[in-house]
């Protein structure tokens, strides 16, 4: 190991000494020029230092060997690739720590010289920053040229984040626990070293392709649990079964004839719009999670009482997509963009819900009695069930 460490130091000492000599004065001068309050200087200095070492050293540790034709020399050494890799990783981590410390020190000095109030180092994005720096090292192994390492790392980490970001976008309100986020962020650090090592081992018998395929496969294997976790959380978030103990019925309407109820319910996740057949107890969720039934003006069509079901998606952020359901049959009979601006809908919600005469409203939260129909009361019970009260007898209609 010691000869390899010496070799790495000797091979890269010009870069490291360059960082040591140039980085502090450059950061010091640059940060002095930044207007006060724009950025926390110590954090900015540390970030610049980390990035400098990652770009200058991490991106070139392996591509440099390829470029100079020395990789074959390393590959045939009896010590194997393990010692070679360990020396490179140690040198890189040491250089990252040194460069970050120098950046921090220079920025802190700039802060003092400028007479600005001391700001503590912000560690919020430390795992991402360190992880990204090490991923540059890992991704560089797949490439013939170190210059491509930074954009390729951005692509790789973007590909990691994108599916999770999309899942969160598609499930408004879904939040990941802070502990899970921390595990994912910190896992980037050892993950990068693992991918780097296995990618480097891929060089034993061949060139960049073997390394890239192996590295990508390991990367995929590393990313998959994170994607799976978020997908599972999203699945839980979207999962809906009104029989679950966690489910609550928030609001509802009963259509003409009293057979179909149109409910808004949630099981700890987003709202679900339900059409319930009160006669059989069967139910179906309509639309997508997040949709809800609303009572809107203009639902009185052809004398038939209907319920408008609106989705959250908007065409141009001003209109809502509406599905109209027949109150008597529970079937959808019309869809289209509303003429109403979103703000109007929100305003109307804030004021009061429009309710046609024939359409009783069940308002669970206020425990208001919903509807009297031929001496029958249909109402919520404990926000979990719908019951029918007739002649003093109570019958549970939903869920059954």
């Amino acid at each position, binding site marked *: 190991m010691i000869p390899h460490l010496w070799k790495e130091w*000797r*091979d890269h000492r010009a870069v490291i000494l360059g960082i040591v000599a140039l980085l502090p004065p450059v950061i010091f001068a640059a940060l002095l020029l930044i207007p006060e309050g724009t950025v926390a200087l110590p954090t900015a200095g540390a970030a610049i230092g980390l990035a400098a070492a990652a770009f200058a050293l991490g991106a070139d540790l392996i591509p440099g060997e390829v470029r100079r034709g020395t990789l074959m*020399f390393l590959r045939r050494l009896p010590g*194997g690739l393990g010692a070679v890799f360990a020396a490179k990783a140690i040198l890189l981590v040491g250089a990252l720590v040194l460069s970050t410390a120098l950046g921090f020190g220079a920025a802190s000095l700039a802060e003092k010289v400028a007479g600005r109030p001391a700001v503590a180092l912000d560690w919020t994005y430390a795992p991402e920053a360190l992880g990204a720096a090490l991923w540059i090292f890992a991704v560089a192994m797949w490439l013939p040229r170190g210059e491509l390492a930074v954009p390729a790392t951005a692509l790789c980490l973007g590909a990691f984040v994108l599916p999770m970001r999309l899942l969160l976008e598609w499930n408004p309100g879904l939040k990941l626990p802070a502990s899970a986020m921390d595990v994912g962020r910190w896992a980037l650090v050892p993950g990068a070293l693992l991918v780097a090592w296995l990618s480097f081992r891929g060089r*034993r018998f061949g060139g960049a392709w073997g390394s890239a395929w192996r590295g990508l496969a390991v990367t995929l294997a590393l990313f998959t649990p994170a994607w799976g976790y978020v997908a599972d959380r999203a699945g839980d978030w979207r999962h809906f079964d009104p029989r679950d103990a966690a489910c609550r019925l928030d609001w509802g309407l009963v259509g003409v004839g009293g057979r179909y109820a149109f409910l808004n319910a949630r099981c700890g996740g987003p709202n679900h719009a339900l059409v319930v057949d009160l006669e059989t107890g069967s139910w179906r969720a309509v639309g997508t999670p997040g949709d809800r039934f609303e009572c809107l003006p203009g639902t009185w069509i052809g004398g038939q009482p209907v319920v408008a079901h609106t989705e959250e998606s908007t065409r141009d952020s001003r209109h809502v997509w509406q599905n109209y359901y027949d109150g008597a049959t529970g079937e959808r009979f019309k869809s289209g963009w509303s003429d109403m601006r979103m703000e109007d809908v929100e305003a109307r919600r804030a004021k009061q819900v429009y309710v046609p005469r024939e359409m009783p409203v069940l308002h669970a939260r206020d425990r208001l009695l919903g509807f009297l129909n031929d001496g029958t009361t249909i109402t919520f019970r404990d926000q979990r069930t719908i019951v029918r009260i007739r002649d003093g007898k109570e019958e549970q209609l939903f869920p059954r």
Partner: protein
Amino acid sequence: MIEFQGVSKRFGKRVVLDALDFSLAPGVVTVLLGRNGAGKSTLQRLCLGVLRPDAGRVEVCGDDPVRRPRDVRRVVGYVPDKPDVYDWMTPRELLRFLKPQYPTWNGDRATRVAEQLAVPLDTPFKSLSRGEGMKAMLMAALAPDPQLLLLDEPFAGLDPVAREDVLKGVIRAGGQTILCATHDLDVAARIADRVAVLSRGKIVAHGPAEEVVGAGGRAPERMREILEEAVA
């Protein structure tokens, strides 16, 4: 010392070694002849375990170089066709770097070879001539007292004086098992106990040097004949 049984190696669609059978006895200097691209370097890299055969079995000094590369590389010296070490490194630094990796390191031998070949020990490789660099590589390969010395066209591109120096270095390594890949018939004539001719991924001739390449000035013609026979 070396045993190849049905070894095949391809790069993409190009078959470099095709079900090759080849063996090398201890203490024998064998010259591996073949045209450029015949697979001589591939064969040597298979011996070092830096390439994996697609089929067949390779055994070097009793070990499988793919499964036990460390054991194999510790007893095998290798000289590439050009110095492929760090250009800032001096031959002395190269020896210092390699020494801990070889349990059989023989510093005296390294010193002796350096003196015999007049290797400038404290000049970085980037400042050495091609011949000096090759002599330094030969010195580094001999320093661990290897059981087997692999030479991958070490004379290519050298001027006559440097070529002669390197050749002397190889000859002085007498008693060593050597597999020297070259397309230089003069080299074969001067150092080889046995000659193997590699063509189209197969050994097309293998035997005592005088039988395979003939004596004296007939060598080039004989070589041509062998290769033409193989192509036919």
